[in-house]
């Protein structure tokens, strides 16, 4: 399992735990990173640039440190 997929799972857990609108938040994360969260799979390679963008977006939108 790739690091970036692990990040996706943590994000989804956080959204669920906080009771947020998943479509809204995932949409915003996708727009900020340029990658739809649904397209991140266990086989998605760990692109450092994408990881960095996702980390920043998760911190900004969910206050989640990855």
């Amino acid at each position, binding site marked *: 399992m790739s690091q970036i997929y692990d990040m996706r799972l943590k994000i989804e857990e956080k959204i669920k735990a906080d009771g947020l609108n998943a*479509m*809204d938040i995932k*949409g*915003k994360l996708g727009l900020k990173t340029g990658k739809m*969260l649904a*397209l991140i799979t266990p086989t998605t390679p760990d692109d450092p640039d994408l990881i960095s963008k996702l980390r920043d977006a998760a911190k900004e939108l969910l206050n989640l440190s990855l």
Partner: protein
Amino acid sequence: MKSTSIKTKVLVALSICLLLGVAGTMALIRYSFEHNARTLAMQSVNDSRKLFDILTAREVSKMTAVGVVLEESAELQKKFLERDRGKLLDFCQPTYERLKAQGITNWVMHTPEPDVSVFLRVHNPSKYGDHLDRFLIKEVVRSHSVATGSELAKAGFAVRVIQPMKDVKGQVIGYLEFGEELGQFIHTMKDQTGDNYGLLLNKKYVDRKLWTESSAAWNRRDNWDDHPGYVVADKTAAERIIDFDGDFAGISESGNVLERYRVGDAMYVRGVFPIRDAAGNPVGAMFVVRDISDFYWSMRRTQTVLIALTALALALSTLLVLAILQKLVFRRLDCIITVATRVVGGDYETAIRTSSDDEIGQFEKLFEQFRRVFVDVMSNVPELQGKR
């Protein structure tokens, strides 16, 4: 890139328009107010001038009528020709008292040519025998007809009527002169208008000795030395009605508005117009002070209401424009952004509703078409198979 929403930019632009609108309205109202105040002040000067002219004409008419009646009095002519000053005074005194009650303060009888001297001053019997070097005297002697006008003499600055006294054969046997102190005019004018007046004379045209004598004759203080270039003949108020630098040449023929000033809650305008004597010399000036408090405060109230209404109207217009923009543009753009975001988040069901056929409506329609294409593409992505 600097990020400022269109809503903020529109709000700033409208606020600037609002401020400019209010400032412009205030400037316009201010100009209108100043213009009206100036017009009112000038009207006060003109009104006073007209009233002065009317009163002068009325008094000239009155004194001319008195002169005509007395000139034809055989008894007066007889007493005058007898040259008995005492008997003539006894005869005239009762009539003079009645005339004085009507405002005629001066009554002089002059001998005919070639001497033309004062035979009797009914209002000041102890002074007689002098030769007067005055314009009106010269004029009546020259024309042998009535001469009228304002002139300074021993008894003060007065509007005068001088007419020849003729016997039954039409021969001039002397001259009758009647006069009314101009100082009395300003009190009459005050009674009629409520305005305050001050009459001052240019020392250039006033004889120092005559002024002292006239002051003594009318039991008033000799105020010759109060001011360097002019002397105050009379005034109806002790306030700053006469505040003058002595520049008579600076007073225009139609009059000048000097200032607007405030005392407590009362607002006044002060103006001046020139006074000419019978020879046409600019011998003095009449100052007028009018209380314009009612007009002034009424205008100020109107000004305040107008500014408030303008500001309110502009503020409401701003709110209305913002509300329209919010409903027609911003809210619909927000809706499109929300749907677009959710599509990216995986919501492929929520469609964009086209609410109108306007520019935003066309964009909504276009974006909905784009969304459907996007959803169709996404349905064929292997990673998403079976997740919808």
